[in-house]
């Protein structure tokens, strides 16, 4: 009787529980790499390192400040873009892993039966 209850659970509440866990896992990996946040601040200067242009206009000084600030932003873009790309790849891998897990969940009774049958065949020589 309990086995019947178990199998009913496995394909109803258990499955939805597995689905929630899988989604949480994928979301967790995605959030860990702060992908949205890094996209929003993609062009921000690296650690806010930015100089002010100051009063008046002197071309040489202006260009130096501009160059410095540009380097800071480019550095920020490079590091953030790398993390974003890595985060997306990791999330994709997590999504595939989660899908595999869900598939295994669905096939579990058959898989277990398969393991037992295959095991018995190998254990008992023909």
């Amino acid at each position, binding site marked *: 009787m309990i086995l019947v209850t178990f199998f009913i659970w496995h394909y109803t509440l258990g499955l939805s529980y597995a689905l929630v866990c899988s989604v949480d896992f994928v979301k967790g990996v995605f959030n860990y*790499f702060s992908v949205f946040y890094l996209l929003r601040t993609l062009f921000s200067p690296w650690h806010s390192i930015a100089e002010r242009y100051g009063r008046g206009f002197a071309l040489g000084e202006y260009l130096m400040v501009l160059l410095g600030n540009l380097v800071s932003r480019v550095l920020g873009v490079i590091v953030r873009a790398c993390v974003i790309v890595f985060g997306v790849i990791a999330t994709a891998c997590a999504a595939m892993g989660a899908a595999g897990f869900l598939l295994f969940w669905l096939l579990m009774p058959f898989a*277990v039966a398969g393991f037992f049958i295959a095991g018995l065949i190998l254990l008992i020589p023909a």
Partner: protein
Amino acid sequence: MYALVSTFIQVAKFESRFPVRVFESARFYSGVCAGVALLVSLGLRVNALLGLGLILFGAYALFHFFTLFLTFYKNIRPKVISTDTKDEELLKEDSIFEYFDFEATQIMLASHYSPDPDMLIHSAAGFPFFSYFLMRLGMTPAMFKKEFAEIKSSRERFGAGQGVKALGVFLADVLSVAKRNGHSQIHPSDLLGACATASQAFKLFLLDRNIDEKDIDRVHHWQKVLEAHKRKGFLQRLGESAGIGKDWAYAYTVKLDAVSTALGGARARDSLHVLAHQKQILVLEGILAKTAGANALLVGDPGIGKMTVIEGLAVRIRNGLSARELNYDRVRKLSMELVFSGKSYSDMVRMLTDVLQDAERAGSVVLVIDEIHNYLSKSSPTNVAEVLLPFLKSSRVKIVGLTTLGGYEKEIVENPLVASLFEKIRIEEPDHEEMMLILEDAASHEEVGHGVFILYAAIKKIYELSRLYITDVPFPEKGIELLQQVVTAAVTNKTPLVTDTLAAEVMSRRVNMPLGVLDTKEKEKLLTLEGELHKRVIGQYEAIKKISEAMRRSRSGVAAENRPAGSFLFLGPTGVGKTETAKALAAVYFGNEERMIRFDMSEYQNQTDIGRLIGNQATGEVGVMAKALRDDPFSLVLLDEIEKAHPDILNLFLQVLDEGKFTDAFGRPINFKNAIIIATSNAGAEFIRQQIQAGQAYDALSKGLVDFILQKAIFRPEFVNRFDGVVVYRPLVKEEIREIAKILLQKLGERLEKKGFTLEVPDDVIAWLAEAGYNEVFGARELRRIVQEKVESKIATDILSDVYKRGDMIRLQKEDL
């Protein structure tokens, strides 16, 4: 829903026979064996071994999913009790069982839904909660079953009993307990709580251990706290992770980092006692989430948990649970000592400005300044209000100041501009319930940290002792501090068990007073208090009896807790033993007569004299009474000649006698709950004498005297009524004077013995002294004077004249006096 509930009950029934831990073990062993078999088969290429490995792996998968299945049902809540559901509906056709949690369901199943509470308790003893409950009482289920059976068999202890109620009635009790405990499901603690009333034997078992229904629920909560402290699962930790790269957009804060420390780090997460301050944490979060004027001032006594509130918020921010506006902020505590260390004022201002600019540039810092009132005081050499002002107005830096009530009133309110830039949050002391939960939480940490096991009785005792005897520090600090001291004592004594007795011992040592459960010696002392006092006070039998009875009420816990340990008004002529009684009581109750603090109230006849007692804020003078009681709250306060004090001073004592405390001139509470107050007065001495001569009985004399002093308006009725007892002292009779003479000479003999002499006093000398020393007006004082003049002076002269040498016996002769 019905299907879910019936499945839930079915799984509960199955799990009580085959616990989930069995499947966990099976999963572990099958997993290990499968791994070994598969690895070896791959190496040896043996098909049979591979087949065995596959079968074991299949078993592993099955056990794994079965464990998940059972755990799933253990943790779900199929139905919850909502506040709008009526009891009648819940109890209709036993639908209440649908609201039982997993373990409560299992207990009911094991007892076959019996309405007999004894049977239910017997069934519950095998389940985790009851085992845990017994463990916290220092017992095993086997020990409990034995004791429970003994209690049940000894019928004479509780008579015939109430008999077994109908199941419906019992379930209604269970529901009431669950509602009282604020539960939305029926937990095992609710079942046991109901049994605590329904089962006479269980009631007695709990009474013997000073445990009530609420305590059962607290132990249940403790069990849940421990489960919550277990290492979190991978998914939960991943979900709570703050993520990487969040601070890459914020500026480096080199100067700020050098003089500040980060709050809400990984270590703080497990050592916080934030339970008591959840509400204040959310209020603080709301204030700091504002775009402008996001500064807060946490106001509360030292030790009340202001920093805990900040830590709690920092952890919320770290876990990404706070308001969006704060999500990536850093909370840093500024060390003003480092900012100010060894520099001139201008250097200090420059340094602080740099640090604040650093924080402002970063735009992501919540800056915490402890004791902020010290830096806003106009008279202080470290006043930096002007430096802080522009940053308090800035939207890019958030400042949280911590201050005391006194500091807030004195320094911040007086600076309206600064005060207007902060939002004030008052941090209150946690109440009893919150404090018990905090102590349980703290105890769990202490157990892990020190390898001890803390009994629930110890937690309860620690709360009680810290509440009663530590009056200068607020909760939660004082409770946690005492808990740590008790655990340290257990570790030092190499005792792995922390008990209530140990807690009482630690507190006793701290206050130098017997505090524990009344031991036999102390019980005897209390029961024979009259005898102890009569060793020093001659006569006055009625007075001594009245005092002794009041002290027994106080020590046994029968008396009101929020009043002094004892308070008496001693009325009677001079020299009859009023002060001596006070000294004797101090010696017996506090262990030393030097714990008597004496105030001659004739020195407090003017209204302005009150400042000398409670302090004067204008002059900065500290009150003598306030200081004495703060230094040693376990004292006997003797107020001599109370009738001579100014009426305003008597009003001050009205509050002391009623509430057991007063507030000194500096706003600090002074606690009298552990003190004995004795006020003495000669008022009505002549009345007493007349009544004694008229042969009036003691009770009538006492009543008549009180009426007399009220009629004469010597004291107001509300003042006299505040005392635990008005004790009337009779004038001494000649026989009593003779006994006092013996005591005085005995004491003289003891003093001489220390100097190497032996004193021998014949009876005729004692009789002569008693005769010469008897005086109706001055009582035993005259005798004391005679002994000094006639005996002590003569012996002193003889010793100086070498009449006696060390080792000699001094024989007093009547003729020599």
